[in-house]
């Protein structure tokens, strides 16, 4: 177990160092976030938008920024032909776990930024911040878990650019429907007990996707 954790940490730190030096994902994601938030701001104008609609807009921003960035983690390894060296040095599960954690950190930073900008430019009213952040975090973990394995699958395909939204939409649909509803209710300030069903679905979805990913990834990665 200690060996596993060591190698996961090394893969994660390698990705952090690579990203800080190349800005392969960060720059494009930051621009995407700024452009998306600006468009939302221009579209809203002086209108008073209901919180339900703002929740939908928030998740549109999160989903598309994730689709722009998370897919790159494995595509970059294939395009630069560095995957062979990685395959010869670490087990598939270690590589998957390292990249999953890197994607989680990246997405949490990005979504924090999206949320701050979103609150600043709209009059988004969060009545139960603790529950709201909890739901948003759970949704993010599910989104990243599913996106990471999809990114690994599309990195082997020829048409990498177009495949991510096509593959991810049906897989992420149950998660998105649940998390949008839960976020809407959390922002409206209801008691945690009232969205326990949604929270259970989010946790179950994440556990199932991570388990399936760990089983599937060696086949995707090694052939």
């Amino acid at each position, binding site marked *: 177990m200690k*060996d596993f954790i*060591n*190698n996961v*940490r*090394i*893969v994660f730190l*390698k990705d952090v*160092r*690579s990203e800080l*030096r*190349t800005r392969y994902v960060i720059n494009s994601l930051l621009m995407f976030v700024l452009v998306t938030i600006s468009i939302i701001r221009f579209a809203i104008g002086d209108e008073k938008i209901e919180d339900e609609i703002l929740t939908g807009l928030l998740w549109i921003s999160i989903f598309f920024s994730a689709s722009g960035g998370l897919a790159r983690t494995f595509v970059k390894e294939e395009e*630069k*032909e*560095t995957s*062979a*060296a*990685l*395959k*010869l*040095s*670490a*087990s598939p599960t*270690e590589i998957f776990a390292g990249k999953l954690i890197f994607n989680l950190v990246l997405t949490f930073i990005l979504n924090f930024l999206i949320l701050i900008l979103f609150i600043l430019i709209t009059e988004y009213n969060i009545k139960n911040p603790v529950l709201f952040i909890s739901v948003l975090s759970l949704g993010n973990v599910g989104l990243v878990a599913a996106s990471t394995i999809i990114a690994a699958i599309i990195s082997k395909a020829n048409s990498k650019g177009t495949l991510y939204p096509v593959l991810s939409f049906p897989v992420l649909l149950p998660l998105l429907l649940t998390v949008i509803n839960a976020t809407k209710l959390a922002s409206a300030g209801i008691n945690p007990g009232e969205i326990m069903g949604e929270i259970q679905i989010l946790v179950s979805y994440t556990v199932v996707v991570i388990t399936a990913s760990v089983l599937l990834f060696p086949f995707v990665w*090694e*052939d």
Partner: protein
Amino acid sequence: MTSFSVISEDLSKKYSGKTIFAGLNFKLNKGESAVITGRNGSGKSTLMKIISGLISPSTGKMKFIKNEVELEKDFIKTNMGFVSPYLNLYDELTALENLRLFSALKSRSGNYDDEKLKSYLQLVGLYDRRNDEIKAYSSGMKQKLKIAFSLLHEPALLMMDEPRSNLDRDGISIIENIAMKQKENGILIIATNDEDDLKLCDLKINIEDHKK
């Protein structure tokens, strides 16, 4: 004394219904070497990828035996070095950082011996450029770094796919010295059509003889 053997059992590979090779059997013991030859596109690199575990064969199996015990997949990685045109290291890392990264991963403990890594860089003539990001390297220098990468943990099996690519005279001499040393201490497999490499090895595997 440690014994080590590499055994190919009835390997075959098909792509889109087309047989690349079939019925490939060989056994190499410590102190032996093989060269894989064949025309361009005949499947030399495919066979190298299968031996290294990068891809799976359509049928058959590769076995790695150390001290009469068959090694599991994860343990083969620490016993194998690989140089190939389709294996690149990270451009955004320095030569030393690349070796530290892969040495730490292969050791599975997160540790590496910096002095040893520096000695590999010295061996391939890259010590003075060890702290440069390798995106600034020429193709020959990158090839030398791949050779240093292949030597991590002194592999029992060293595999070299077209090892002379992009190398100058000094680089070729380094390759020849490493190959001679590997023949004494472990197993060497080279995929090439270069006449000098053909002379280096004991066993010749011609892919053309294994097409159905």
